[in-house]
């Protein structure tokens, strides 16, 4: 049940080109026409179909969120597992580094990076991924610490399980629920961050995103409320789908 929202989003993302009635970049009617049967969510300034734009936006946001997830998982789990399992000076150094990343103002750093390096889905994923992992790393570390001392880990070690094997076979499976609950919440924040960046004009010009669509509405708020309302609503629903999935995973625990 809880996963249905995220699932819908992913299905829309994969099949957007077939589900969308129009090419989102194509001028298909008059500009700034309100919602109608022909254009369920209305058209934008130059007459592109907003419904098709919102469907394609699902694709862009899903790509970015999944891409960021890969980077965040890779860094956070490496740092958290190593830090929590080995402890000592390695732990100290890694946690200090994580702290620095926690204070870095992500949004501003992203603005600077994108303004100076140009915008693109790839660069967005990298900058958001590199600045978003620290919280998760701390959760992974804390969970690792609490599992490390348990009897089954002790037993595995007694039976000759090496560090690598113990981490992957004993610790990782036991910290997955809590950490994935945290991860989904983190991804919902990444989604909102990406949307804000696109809103202020820092999105990839070659792919349509929800934030970009909402941002383009600002100049025509007086005459075209639908361009402001619907893309934002899509972001809201996507973020809600992630948080409710996270809640469900957390409650199962």
């Amino acid at each position, binding site marked *: 049940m809880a996963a249905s929202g995220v699932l819908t989003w992913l299905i829309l993302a994969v099949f957007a080109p077939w589900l969308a009635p129009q090419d989102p970049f194509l001028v298909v009617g008059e500009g700034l026409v309100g919602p109608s049967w022909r254009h369920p969510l209305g058209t934008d300034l130059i007459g592109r179909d907003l419904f098709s734009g919102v469907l394609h936006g699902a694709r862009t946001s899903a790509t970015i969120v999944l891409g960021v997830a890969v980077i965040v998982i890779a860094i956070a789990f490496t740092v958290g597992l190593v830090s929590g399992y080995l402890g000592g000076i390695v732990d100290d150094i890694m946690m200090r580094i994580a702290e*620095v990343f926690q*204070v*870095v*103002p*992500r*949004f*501003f*750093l992203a*603005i*600077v*990076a994108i*303004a*100076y*390096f*140009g915008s693109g889905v790839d660069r967005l994923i990298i900058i958001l991924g590199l600045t978003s992992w620290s919280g998760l790393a701390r959760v992974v570390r804390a969970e690792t610490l609490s599992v490390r001392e348990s009897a089954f880990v002790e037993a595995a070690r007694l039976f000759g399980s090496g560090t690598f094997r113990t981490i992957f076979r004993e610790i990782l499976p036991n910290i997955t629920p809590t950490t994935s609950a945290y991860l989904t919440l983190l991804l*919902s924040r990444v989604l*909102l961050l990406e*949307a*804000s960046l696109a*809103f*202020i*004009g820092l999105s990839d010009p070659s792919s349509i995103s929800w*934030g970009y669509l*909402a*941002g383009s*509405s*600002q100049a025509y*708020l*007086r005459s075209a*409320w639908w361009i*402001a*309302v619907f893309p*934002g*609503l899509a*972001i*809201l629903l996507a*973020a*809600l789908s992630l*948080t409710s999935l996270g809640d469900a995973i957390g409650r199962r625990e």
Partner: protein
Amino acid sequence: MTKYVLRRLIQVVPTVLGITLITFVLVHIAPGDPVEVLASGNGDEAYYEFMRAKYRLDDPFLTQLWTYVSNVLRGDFGTSYLTGESVVRTIMPRIGSTLLLAVSSIVISTLIGLAFGVLAAWRANRLLDKAMLRISVFLAAAPSFWIAQVLLLFFALRLGIFPTDGRNSPGFEGTGFAKAVDTLWHLMLPMSVLASQESSTIARLTRTGIVDQLGDDHIRLARAKGLGDLQVVLRHALRRSLPPVVTVIGGRVGHVFSGAVVVELIFGWPGLGRLILSSSQSRDTPVLLGVLMLIAAAVVLMNLLTDLSYMLIDPRVRLK
């Protein structure tokens, strides 16, 4: 205690320097020549030479960094590439606006958040509590620009009870009290956007903190003395649930500043957020670095203040 405060104050410096360094490196490894971007490709070779020499852009990276940092320590933040005006002069007039927006939304959201948190804890698991949980989940998932535009559409464009943009009405010439009222009127919508999201976070935390304590012995004693539910919550549970709430408020300052960028853009609020956007688009590096450093310092200082207020609320911290 003075020692502790001093040590924490000294820690502020490397953090702010670190953030400056990251930005500095980022800006320098970026492709493209700032001078060419400034002239939008229209200048000639002599002009580029002149500009590069003027801003010493051909110096090695470390020399540039050293010059910059030592100038900053002397209070010189350089001049804007774009206007030639000093960075301090460019930033100064905008600080007040952003500060007004940020501080007012933090204060209001703290008051509202605490009040709603107490209400929710008092009525824990009843209708009011559940309704408030729904609302806060909704607010946390909504993009701030969406809330801003929906409020703008409804309250400014539809009902016309608030202005659409700016800090004062166009051509407004009043001073003193009249001007303050006019500013407040313009502030209401942008402030509400930032405050709505912050207050829902604070309310949830307050509620959880209080509810967690309701089973404790000191609460049972208070009840045994015959205090009513609301009195127990207000006089006994609230105080002890404050420290985590204060931490979160301090930690959210960065979030408020980020939110301010979007909100300032939508409501035409003349603050630092819009300056960051325009200076990063025009690659006006000195201005950009100056604003970022200011924000980093504000965020880190707020964290410090949070820790210090912690000591006032929770005497146990003082002993450590």
